[in-house]
């Protein structure tokens, strides 16, 4: 069936079977392969995207359920010129090893920091507990997210 939604600021229309998950639609229909698939049963968080601004698991959503929604993927949070403050923080803190969980980590952290730029380490850990990383042991990821908080605070609150 035909399906229209907005992805990373662009309106798209694709033809999908109802059984196609949103992550498969993004990856294989729209070739947005930055979003990864690690389990297909809603545990690992690698497929996290932003749906109408909220972090969701794209393997647990049918593509057809996203009709009319606004989707942002890791590609939409990136640009060619420079790393965003959150991306730069991930790099600076060595919060990346194999890179497979990274897009899901960054989309999740982006959603969190956008809403709660003053969250503490416990909150970061709680939120990221839905994203499995098998390489880093998480210490550096939590540090990276905490260090990126200032970039999400309104300008007047920054020194």
């Amino acid at each position, binding site marked *: 069936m035909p399906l229209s939604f907005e992805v990373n600021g662009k309106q798209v229309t694709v033809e999908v079977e109802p059984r196609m998950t949103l992550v498969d639609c993004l990856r294989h229909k729209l070739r947005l392969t930055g979003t990864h698939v690690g389990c297909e049963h809603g*545990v690992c968080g690698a497929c996290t995207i932003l749906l109408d601004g909220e972090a969701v698991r794209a393997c647990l959503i049918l593509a057809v359920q996203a009709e009319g929604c606004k989707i942002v993927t890791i590609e939409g949070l990136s640009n060619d010129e420079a790393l965003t403050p959150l991306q730069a923080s991930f790099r600076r803190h060595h919060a990346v090893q*194999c890179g*497979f969980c990274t897009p899901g980590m960054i989309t999740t952290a982006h959603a969190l920091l956008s809403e709660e730029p003053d969250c503490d380490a416990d909150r970061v850990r709680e939120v990221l507990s839905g994203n499995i990383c098998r390489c880093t*042991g998480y210490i550096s990821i939590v540090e990276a997210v905490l260090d990126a908080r200032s970039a999400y605070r309104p300008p007047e609150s920054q020194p």
Partner: protein
Amino acid sequence: MRNSFVGSPVERREDLRFVRGRGQYVDDLNPDGLLHAVILRSSFAHGRIRSIDASATVKLAGVHAVITARDMPGGPPRIPMRLQPLPEFMPFEQGVIADTKVRYVGEPIAVVVATSVAVGEDALDHIVVDIEPLPAVSDCETSAAGDRLLFEQQGANCAMTFTAECGDADAAFKAAAYVRREKFRTGRHFGLTLEPRGVMAEWDAATGRLTVSGAAKVPFFNRRVLAEQMGLPEDSIAMIENDVGGGFGARGEFYPEDFLIPFAARYTGRPVKWIEDRRENLMAMNHARQAQVEVEIACAHDGTILALRGHAHVDMGAYMRTNGAVAARNIAQFMAGPYRIPNIRVKSSLWMTNKTPVGTYRGPGRFETDFFRERLLDMVAKDLRLDRVELRRRNLIPASHMPYPLPAIAPFPASDEIDSGDYRATLDRCLEEFGWADKAKLAGKLIDGRFHGLAVGCFIEGGAAGPKETARLEINPDGSVAVFIGSSAVGQGVETVFAQIAADALEIPMDRISGVHHGSTAYVSDGYGAYHSRSVVMGGSALLDATKNLHNLIRTAAAKRFGCLPSEIKISEDGIVGPHGSSARFADFAGLTAEGAFLNKKHTYTFGAHAAHVTVDARIGRIEIIDYLAVTDCGRIINPMTVRGQVIGSLVQGLGGALLEDLKYDKDGQLLTGSLADYLLPSASDFPNLRAVVTEMFPSPINPLGAKGAGEGGIISAGGVVANAVANALGAFGVEPRELPLTPQRVWEMVEAGRLAT
């Protein structure tokens, strides 16, 4: 220019694409005409295949082919052992697809090639498989009983018994003042990678060339195997390494799918891709760790260890896979770890069972055997009323004894020795940084409902397996230099660390290293890959050799151009200078390329000490890590940031093995943990309090870099140290953990048993 990129926390080059979602993993490839493979896997642990009928399946819309053993002329080829390929193991090797018998749940029976994965999975239901079930061998005891045979013609389920030996253990036990005998077990874990495995194969019938994407870890070895199995010349196959979402020993070994997918591509004449789903990953990727041991230690009254004697039994699963014997061997050979034990005889038997076959997982055998040994040491300290730290310090191999020979292992004779180190120094550093003296006062105390416990343990970590690695440098048209290595990337940051090494060796800025190309068979003449913490040590050393060779080529070429002797040429960051004001730029020698190699028969031994402070909520068995410190000396540090990343990352995997991860089977050989909701991986909220200190006091004397393998040390101590800390916390209940993982239920059961006993 004298650079010092080596030793600096250089930010990783590969991150620039990873943080933008621009990595390219095998499932990101979608060539025109692509078909998708899905695999029908056995739902029986043990059975005889009576028939497979796919006649209805091939007629389904969207199904292009169904491949079974019958489609392979001469029968399905076997997958040979890569490490310890002893003839005794050959009968136990796995064929690429089940033929007459199935021996584990998850064994491939048929491959469906279809227009989409979904259509292929729909089609699986239509294949009619008739299997006569046989009684399953679900553990070592049943395997040893011998009345249920996996390989009838072998007459027994034991594939091998290794013996590690030095001195005269029996004589030492006879004379010893103190002896303790114990039994321990470790659970079944595996090197689960977050990216499931995947293979994409393209067959060009016109040229007879095969291209296989998704290669990892050991592409050159795998190409040799595949060429043999497919009846193709090696050089007609290209193995392409894409970005690899984690290795940990498990990914990149030759698995059945590494043949089945290229075979399907040639069979259908279309590109074919297979991406493992997580459910099948849990039953198809190499398992690891599950072992039990009966072990005895003999000591003098002062705690001096005199001898170690024991027999380990390793649950191998259904086949001997490529590196399946490594853990069993290491359990025997490394049971003494960093301690000086003059008399050793430890056997390790490999028992075939109807489970997913085992292979290596980071720190293979070492995690297990360190748990056995460190537990034993704390028990000895308690028995002899010795301080646990003092007992260890007394028995650590003194620095003056380096290099120190390892026990001989039979029947795979290869003498090995520990290269360098001062184990007491890292132990002392660990105690000091940890604040042991203060924290030890908390031992066994009940504070706010939780019991506090502490422990410390020491380890060694082998690295830098030989025999060889290859590297090549090539000057680009713009004068920058490209690096090509036979090592593989599995997420450990090789593009950055090799650029650091190359820039320092060539004495040019790092931005003039255009790229580090790794893992694919096209780049160097031969490569050995990423295992046994070898990439940096072996590839880096080869890179130094390649630099020397490239400089020689430049000198020769420049001398010819300038009409002088090669010895008169000076190479610097700014260019190439000859006598009488003659000069040239690197770009003038574009296309010059030099390969280098490093050969090595010995291994490096990183070492260190770990300390843990835990609390236990004894009512529910919950363990919390309050503080955990890993101190590691890994020789020359290339990038302190990535080394620390290796230590913390592997430590959390170790804690996962110590506390969470367990692949469970029932008596019929059915896998009970078939999802990530059942196989519990550590998450971000589990272990927030971990610290790592990495030092470089003892560069390795056996390679020009002075580096040691450092990818596995974090995992090795975790089980023993955590278990000892729990025993320390729950001393009031007489708790002595003898089995991992230490689930809350097990802890609770031990506490309850202790309550009843008192």
